[in-house]
């Protein structure tokens, strides 16, 4: 649709601007403020320049948390995106079954995040949980609150359980938009199933797939609640991801300066990656025109 130029449209955007300005810009300014100051208490602050940023950049604790975060995000994306595409291809195309599948598949997405943690906390316990109990009966040494590997496996399965459906739903929506003429043409050409996927379905899904990847990147990079409820960041610091570490630092220890510097860099990293995704996405939109 061709849009008309109208500067008065700013008035329509004004309420959003004021509200988001209040709930985003003011807090963000506070963070910037803390990140360059230090205090001896009594609300007396003095500027320290970029000291906190240097401290964070060289902090081993943050490096470790960042490493864990990158590892976690890579693993879950490597599982969820292919699995999501595969499941979307298995979805019934229409009718009652499609509706039933849609509703059941969406269910994990609507569960409060702390409840997701609780569900898996119970499900994976060796004494009362189905998963943990079964594994223990099979003689597998498994305990997510003591053993690092078990904790990681549990958190990854939990995230796959929680979020693969998002990828499935988006890919399914993409597949639905492919006109049946494409499939008929492929049939006439006797294209193999793989070729249909490679040359028809995948290119048509590219747009939604990028959105799915963007959302999964963003959300997994700021994951807090689920691992917090499940393992509390433990055993030791084995599952302390960036957000968990940040909350510990800011609210637990009240180290405002370093926490603020950390916050800003954390936000910037997410923004940067998202901006790259966004640019690629808009370019694809333009090509499809």
């Amino acid at each position: 649709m061709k849009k008309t130029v109208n500067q008065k449209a700013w008035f329509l955007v004004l309420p959003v601007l004021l509200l988001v300005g209040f709930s985003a810009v003011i807090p963000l300014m506070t963070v910037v403020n803390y990140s360059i100051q230090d205090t001896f208490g009594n609300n007396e602050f003095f500027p320290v320049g970029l000291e906190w940023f240097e401290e964070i950049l060289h902090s081993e604790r943050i490096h470790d948390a960042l490493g864990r975060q990158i590892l976690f995000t890579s693993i879950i994306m490597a599982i969820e995106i292919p699995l999501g595409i595969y499941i979307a291809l298995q979805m019934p195309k229409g009718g009652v079954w499609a509706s039933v599948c849609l509703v059941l598949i969406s269910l994990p997405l609507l569960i409060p995040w702390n409840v997701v943690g609780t569900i898996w906390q119970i499900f994976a316990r060796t004494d009362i949980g189905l998963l943990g109990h079964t594994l223990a009966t099979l003689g597998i040494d498994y305990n997510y609150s003591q053993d690092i590997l078990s904790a990681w496996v549990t958190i990854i399965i939990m995230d796959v359980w929680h979020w693969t459906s998002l990828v499935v739903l988006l890919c399914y929506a993409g597949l639905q938009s492919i006109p049946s003429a494409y499939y008929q043409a492929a049939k006439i050409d006797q294209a193999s199933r793989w070729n249909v996927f490679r040359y028809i379905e995948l290119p048509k899904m590219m747009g939604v797939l990028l959105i799915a990847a963007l959302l999964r990147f963003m959300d997994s990079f700021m994951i807090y609640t689920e691992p917090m409820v499940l393992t509390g960041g433990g055993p030791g610091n084995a599952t302390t991801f960036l957000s968990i570490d940040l909350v510990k630092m800011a609210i637990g220890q009240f180290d405002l300066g370093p926490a603020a510097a950390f916050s800003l860099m954390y936000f910037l990293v997410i923004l940067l990656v998202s901006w790259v995704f966004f640019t690629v996405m808009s370019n694809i939109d333009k090509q499809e025109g």
Partner: protein
Amino acid sequence: MNNAPVKKGFFSSKSPAIMLLYILFLMLPIYWLMNMSLKTNEEILGTFSMFPNDITFDNYIVIFTDPDWYWGYINSMTYVVMNTVISLTVALPAAYAFSRYRFLGDKHLFFWLLTNRMAPPAVFALPFFQLYSSVGLFDTHIAVALAHTLFNVPLTVWILEGFMKGVPKEIDETAYVDGFSFFAFFTKIFTPMIASGIGVAAFFCFMFSWVELLLSRTLTAVDAKSIAATMTKTVSASGVDWGVLSAAGILTILPGAIVIYFVRHHIAKGLSLGRV
């Protein structure tokens, strides 16, 4: 849409078995939670069984009779509804502007809105706490509702813009020619036309405000304590009350499970911020 028969292979045609397996994988943990919620604590810790031996609703009764628990639900509902109303009210005109007009800085503004959806709540937890404490809103529903607008307003704008793009511009122009003022046109003609979009946006505001824990827990203490916060504080001296915790969990899943049926065809659009 007809489904062309295709050759067997790795990417073979649809097999219901895989779909069933996936759904089983999704449902099992939820079933287990329900199983737990219908047992007494003695049974949970004493015996291991796939089904409750004798079904008890005691855990649910605890929740419906203990003010600590049921106020959690009421508080959560209150701020979630407030948030949905605020988000929709401010987002409707803005989405209209983005879908119809070109103006100075529109693209940057649109992306800037999205960046707020990307902001980790952990970054905002402490500044929000200080901001709302300093204006005397700490531990009120409106504080949580306003805090959640951080990610819900951008989401709503994006979803609504997606729906509004589908309405032909000629409708606007005809209405103006017919002598409608902007306000009359917007409320009487345009809003009813995108009613389903508003429904979907409302659903997603509801959902994302309902599932969030960190901000709602940081901004409330007693009077406006959310159900999520109540649930994370169930560990008492005698250990965790698994039965009641499970029942509380099941009750938080219910609202979503009921409403989802109505938006099942639009859920992809909502989750993708209106970009599908």
